[in-house]
């Protein structure tokens, strides 16, 4: 059976923020998110599984971010690599919708 879940890997050095982001992502029925705290672990995960999205959180060095972009794209050219800005209030979902080309979700007051 085909897996219809969007697989998301989150990398973040701040453990509490990482857990919050994972909790929020996994409230979405069609998404499944896992988290890692460093570059090596992220690359190792991507060798074993195909993710649609890699979310990069704060705390990585510029060199680590460049390394992630190049090595993970080599492993999985179709992956969307995007940054997130914390999990509390708003951007998380929009950045993923944008990366995945999701249709409009227009709520109006």
């Amino acid at each position, binding site marked *: 059976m085909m897996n219809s879940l969007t697989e998301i890997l989150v990398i973040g050095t*701040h453990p509490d923020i990482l857990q919050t982001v994972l909790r929020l992502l996994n409230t979405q029925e069609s998404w499944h998110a896992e988290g890692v705290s460093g570059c090596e672990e992220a690359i190792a995960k991507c060798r074993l599984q195909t993710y649609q999205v890699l979310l990069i959180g704060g705390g990585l060095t510029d060199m680590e971010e460049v390394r992630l972009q190049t090595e993970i794209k080599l492993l999985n050219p179709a992956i969307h690599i995007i940054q997130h800005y914390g999990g509390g209030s708003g951007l998380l979902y*929009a950045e993923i919708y944008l990366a995945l080309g999701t249709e409009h979700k*227009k709520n109006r007051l």
Partner: protein
Amino acid sequence: MAQTVLHAAASRGGADHGWLKSYHTFSFASYYNPERVNFGALRVLNDDSVAGGRGFGEHPHDNMEIISIPLSGALEHKDSMGNIGTIEPGEIQVMSAGTGIYHTEYNKNKEETVKFLQIWVFPNKRNVEPRYDQVKINAPEKPNTLVQILSPNPDDAGVWIHQDAWFNLGKLEKGSQIDYTFQKKGNGAYIFVLEGDIEVDGQILSTRDGFGIWDTDKFSIKASSAAEFLIMDVPMEF
């Protein structure tokens, strides 16, 4: 020739959670429109009303410059760096989330609704040390002038952020006009009308309309009625 974009007040996204009513100029939370994600480095412009005693519980941010401008009532902030502060109209608050910060924002008053703008700007430097500040906004030196409330410079008027952005509040009497010159080549300006009617580059704007203008060095704002507005001068590429 100048390029422009109009976001009419009624076209904004929104959320009504009972205790929170929020209008989103750009995609935010459950409002998503790929044509309205940002204006240059300006990523979020939320027009929020929070009921008495209610607010946003503890939540994290990283790598974002977050600015709050109260319009009425009082907003209380507490964060994981130990900062506690309350801001009221005539003040502005900034938080550089940098490597990561947790905070709460609550309506300080039990009875009165707090109304405020929450604005997020992409930083020009990632993973900075988190920082919080709040300042009183200077009164205008004379009528029909702009008051700078934000810049990239710690020694300049208002708060400062990690981005080549300048914010100005304007208050014009009916019939008056001001000219605005961009602070930096390559920047654009997003004008958000707080109250009244103005005309920018031939475009008539009313309360809560937003208008972006770029690829020009300057523009004029003319007040068709007594009006208050915010000009956000931000890099279009960052």
